[in-house]
């Protein structure tokens, strides 16, 4: 939660500075981002490979534990596509790219801005990136606030599926509280699976 607020604060600070129209800065932000994004991807990869996430995943790997991340992916994509039909401004694949952020707002929005630009132009890509940032923050907040409600009405898997990627970090404490200790390994595996899925799926839907 604290981390999310820091991230939001930094984004808003950038926003405020951008509104001052200091030209060299916006030029820099347009050109440097791609390479910094590459550096970010490499670091995320190293972090996944280096941590015991992979061994943890191998240990827990069983079709029944893989079910939940799969359900999250299928459900999210299905309904994101419906949202794409509803929203006339955006195509179905645009909405799928936003939806497949699964709560990983920082990475999904940055990827969308970078990868969508060649296809729909910088302006549109920035707009879609903003939508991805907001939509995935909303997803995390919804789980943080609504976890007790989801558990009561939809069962103990519900807050995990709503949390998406954040079921392994930000939302883990509230999931433990509402769904019980037994759900912690499932929530962790769910988050790890989706963490690897996000960059793959977002870049896939950005190409379509």
């Amino acid at each position, binding site marked *: 939660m604290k981390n999310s607020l*820091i*991230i939001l604060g930094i*984004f808003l600070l*950038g*926003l*405020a*500075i*951008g509104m001052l129209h200091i030209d060299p*800065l916006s030029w820099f*932000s*347009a050109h440097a*981002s791609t390479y910094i994004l*590459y550096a*970010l*991807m*490499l*670091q*995320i*990869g*190293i*972090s*996944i*490979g*280096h*941590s015991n996430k992979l061994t943890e995943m191998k240990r827990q790997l069983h079709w*029944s534990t893989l079910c939940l991340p799969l*359900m*999250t992916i299928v*459900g999210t994509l*299905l*309904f*994101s596509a*419906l*949202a794409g039909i*509803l*929203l006339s401004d955006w195509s179905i694949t645009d*909405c799928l790219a*936003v939806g497949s952020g*699964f709560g990983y707002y*920082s990475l999904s*929005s*940055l990827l969308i*801005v970078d990868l969508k630009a060649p296809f729909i132009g910088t*302006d549109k890509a*920035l*707009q879609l*990136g*903003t939508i991805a*940032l*907001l*939509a995935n923050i*909303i*997803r995390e907040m919804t789980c943080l606030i609504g976890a007790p409600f*989801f558990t009561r009405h*939809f069962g103990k*898997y519900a807050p995990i*599926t*709503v949390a998406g990627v954040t079921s392994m970090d930000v939302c883990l404490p509230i999931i433990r509280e509402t769904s019980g200790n037994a759900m912690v390994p499932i929530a962790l595996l769910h988050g790890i699976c989706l963490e690897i899925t996000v*960059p793959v799926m977002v870049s896939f839907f*950005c190409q379509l």
Partner: protein
Amino acid sequence: MFIILLLLAGGIGIGYLMRHIHFLQHIDKSISFTIYVLLFLFGIHIGSDQKLIDSFHTLGLQAFVISFAGIIGSLLVTYIAFRVWKKRGGERRSDEE
């Protein structure tokens, strides 16, 4: 796209090979820092675009729609799947655990 996935896969490989080097544990901090820098630049980029600022409320509304669609979708699919699963093999679940 391929560069991004290649970097991700390469990173996983490098990280796995260097998993005994404890220094790399601090990479999470440098990831956070990189994300801060990128989001800051992203903010500058958006802030300097007046058209985008003007359409912020529309974008927010669209973000709400996509976000809630995703949440409802994953809730429904998970709920239905586990109901069906329980009904068909309620007993079998005990040997999974």
